[in-house]
């Protein structure tokens, strides 16, 4: 349930290709069992979008391989025929990374869903890309281990998708992103060559291809197997809930905690509007009169947690917290988190549609950003719920709108653009963890200059010289940026001066 700013026109196929659909399906039928290939329009409909639901496109076919050999065969076929391939995990991505290409196929990794091994002493698991994020932690639980990155969609999202997006979660402040927790991938490139990237050892020889692969939004290849790091489950986790009468004070409290040398397991903020919305939904007993509430989680041994909570408490009180509650048992801790985790469904209850943004800014600009967004909400006359991973400056403002009202959609889109561009201006980024996909492709022109964008295209070409792997996503063409008139002026120079202006 989200809108798409200016990307309705974004799905233009790149490169321009015309595919002979009948020939393609005949060729794919030769390398895939019948039940692994979808070609009828009724069943294709289920793949017309990912979590970015306002952009829809019908693929020519969907391949659902069950083995790496089938993945390779599909890729070789498409490579030979010059057919674009859009890789897709669970389809929960929010930025349109898996939006189909109208002249291409979708290659779903959903049926590569086997947990190959879980090794307690090695603290590693080997899984296929279609395994759900939460399933990894569930498989590791009997050994007292878990997989740390925990995006909100972890019940549904897959490890392959997490690799594509470099997913984070509420615990990544302390435990890192996907890039810090994935050790190795096997990846098939567009030509169908399988590469081992990274290793079960602490590093591997040569360039760090793993770093480029993680977060590459399906532009470089299709992952067929992933080795993840598992970490011991902390013995104790406890959550502090602090209320603030002033959102600026809450922002300062976040900086104070970090500056004191504490890296909490989670540090999240919700504004008053969000607190009110989620309270109706989960009845967590949140203080409704607070301008902002902070959730600060501490984990470790009993001794560590007691020590850290005591220090956090002092800091929050000094920062002006009007109320502090500390979870006394696991049920209460989960209740504190219930509202934060329910922010999206709660938004869905109070407005017909919402649009979730994902900018990241330096923590110290949090209060400035919040005030600016307050002004934008008035300017565009739309509701706004603010939830964020305050510890790492990653904002998830939810813009409330009505998709049946074209003017409301237009205002929501403009609101979103303003937020992203202010994120860049404040020294941050347009996307902290959801990816660029199609959704934020125009804002890439604001964040990067022509030379960086050119280098991104070159990096893609190093893995995919044919340019058929998820084309048209994540990195805009220089021409597109020129047309957008949204150019990042780099070192005072006008980028790509050779292009015609409009």
């Amino acid at each position, binding site marked *: 349930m989200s809108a798409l700013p200016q990307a309705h026109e974004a799905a233009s196929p790149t490169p321009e290709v015309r595919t002979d659909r009948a020939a393609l399906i005949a060729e794919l039928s030769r390398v895939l069992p019948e039940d692994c290939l979808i070609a009828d329009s009724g069943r294709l409909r289920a793949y017309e979008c990912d979590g970015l639901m306002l952009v829809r496109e019908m693929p020519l076919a969907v391949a659902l391989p069950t083995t790496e050999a089938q993945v390779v065969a599909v890729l070789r076929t498409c490579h030979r025929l010059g057919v674009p391939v859009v890789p897709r995990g669970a389809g929960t991505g929010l930025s349109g990374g898996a939006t189909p290409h109208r002249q291409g196929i979708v290659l779903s990794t959903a049926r590569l869903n086997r947990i190959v091994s879980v090794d307690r002493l090695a603290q590693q698991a080997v899984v296929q890309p279609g395994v759900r994020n939460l399933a990894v932690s569930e498989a590791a639980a009997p050994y007292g281990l878990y997989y740390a990155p925990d995006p909100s969609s972890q019940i549904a999202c897959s490890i392959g998708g997490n690799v594509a*997006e470099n997913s984070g979660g509420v615990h990544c402040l302390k435990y890192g992103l996907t890039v810090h927790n994935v050790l190795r991938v096997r990846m098939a490139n567009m030509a169908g060559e399988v590469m081992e990237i990274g290793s*079960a050892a602490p590093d*591997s020889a040569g360039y760090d291809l793993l770093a*480029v692969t993680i977060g590459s939004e399906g532009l470089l290849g299709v992952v067929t197997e992933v080795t993840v790091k598992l970490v*011991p489950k902390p013995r104790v986790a406890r959550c502090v809930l602090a209320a603030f009468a002033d959102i600026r004070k809450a922002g300062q409290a976040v900086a104070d905690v970090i500056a004191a040398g504490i890296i909490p397991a989670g540090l999240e903020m919700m504004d008053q509007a969000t607190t009110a919305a989620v309270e109706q939904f989960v009845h967590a007993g949140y203080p409704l009169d607070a301008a902002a509430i902070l959730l600060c989680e501490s984990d470790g041994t009993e001794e560590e947690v007691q020590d850290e909570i005591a220090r956090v408490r002092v800091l929050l009180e000094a920062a002006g917290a009007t109320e502090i509650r500390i979870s006394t048992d696991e049920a209460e801790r989960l209740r504190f988190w219930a509202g934060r985790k329910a922010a999206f469904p709660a938004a869905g209850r109070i407005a017909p549609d919402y649009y979730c943004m994902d900018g990241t800014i330096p923590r110290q600009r949090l209060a400035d950003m919040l005030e600016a967004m307050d002004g934008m909400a008035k300017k565009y006359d739309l509701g706004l719920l603010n939830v964020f991973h305050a510890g790492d400056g990653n904002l998830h403002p939810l813009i409330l709108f009505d998709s049946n009202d074209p003017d409301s959609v237009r205002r929501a889109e403009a609101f979103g653009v303003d937020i992203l561009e202010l994120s860049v201006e404040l020294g941050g980024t347009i996307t902290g963890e959801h990816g660029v996909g199609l959704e934020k492709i125009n804002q890439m022109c604001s964040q990067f200059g022509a030379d960086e964008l050119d280098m991104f295209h070159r990096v893609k070409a190093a893995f995919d010289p044919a340019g058929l792997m998820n084309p048209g996503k994540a990195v805009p063409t220089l021409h597109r940026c020129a047309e957008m008139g949204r150019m990042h002026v780099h070192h005072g120079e006008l980028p790509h001066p050779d292009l015609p202006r409009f």
Partner: protein
Amino acid sequence: MSSHLHSVLREQVLEAAAHGRTLRPHGSGSKDFLAQALSGTPLDMRGAQGVIAYEPSELFITAHAGTRLADIESLLAAHNQMLAFEPPHLGPHATLGGALATGLSGPRRMAAGSLRDFVLGVTLMDGQGRVLRFGGQVMKNVAGFDVSRLIAGSFGTLGLILEVTLKVLPRPPAEQTRVLALDEAHALSTLREWGAQPLPLSATLWHDGRLAVRLSGAEPALAAAVRIIGGEPLAADDAAALWQSVREQRHPFFAGDAPLWRVALPPMAPALALEGRPLVEWNGLQRWLRSDIDADALRHAVRALGGHATLFRGGRAVDRALGVFEPLAPEVMAVHRRLKQAFDPSGVFSPGRLYAEL
């Protein structure tokens, strides 16, 4: 300062590219012994030094590549912070750019992560003389490919490293080192068992029948861990000296002329049945070996265990010439060559330093 320096560097890069010459960017030369033989006209990258931005509460530091690592670490220490991957300096004037180019990490890597895990942003001049900025100063940033981390360990072959932003972390409130008498096999199995539990281990070292374990964290957590780990305490000064000696390769193990191999292994790899003297770090994931063993035999044995070996220091000239790093699979080398071509189309930067083909 930067823009003048950038135009001077750009001129040299374009000039070299135009005339088919090569350049070898360098800092203090502390890690010149690493990797393949040096080639290209030396290009001193210490023209720009100093911290550009440091915000303790934002947990990052940005500095010019020529800044001394020692200066960065003392600034961080003054704010009770650190580079958690404990980069080996291997010389008093080691630079930030050199640390990024070589990608090395020290004892705390096993718990905190490697240098590349802490890279947030890089400013780079490519082979066309273009100044490119990747990443930034925020912890979470997925806009565009993660080029900053690709530069870590690229040995100057992809471009001139101009500025680097690293994530920094608070120093642990307390540390303690315990020493136990164990043979290598028992040390490895014990470390694995501890590793699977939530214990505050921040460094491990096994050598010559002695296992040293460093614990980092809040005092009460250390006390609880000591009850599980046991062993004898090492005096704080001795402990600091021990970890420093391993990090900087001044431990007696590293003295002498015998070839020094670095072997990276998966967690379950047993003690190496290879001739030579071992020193084991990172819970067994990083093993050092002083050995005259035939390079092929060593690589073969290590590969069979799922790891890779680097001829880190010394060794026969013929072995070094064949390549100090693990050979790459053909399809992986093909991507490497195309990446090199993407960043450095004329082959200006440190050709052959990493692999003969690059």
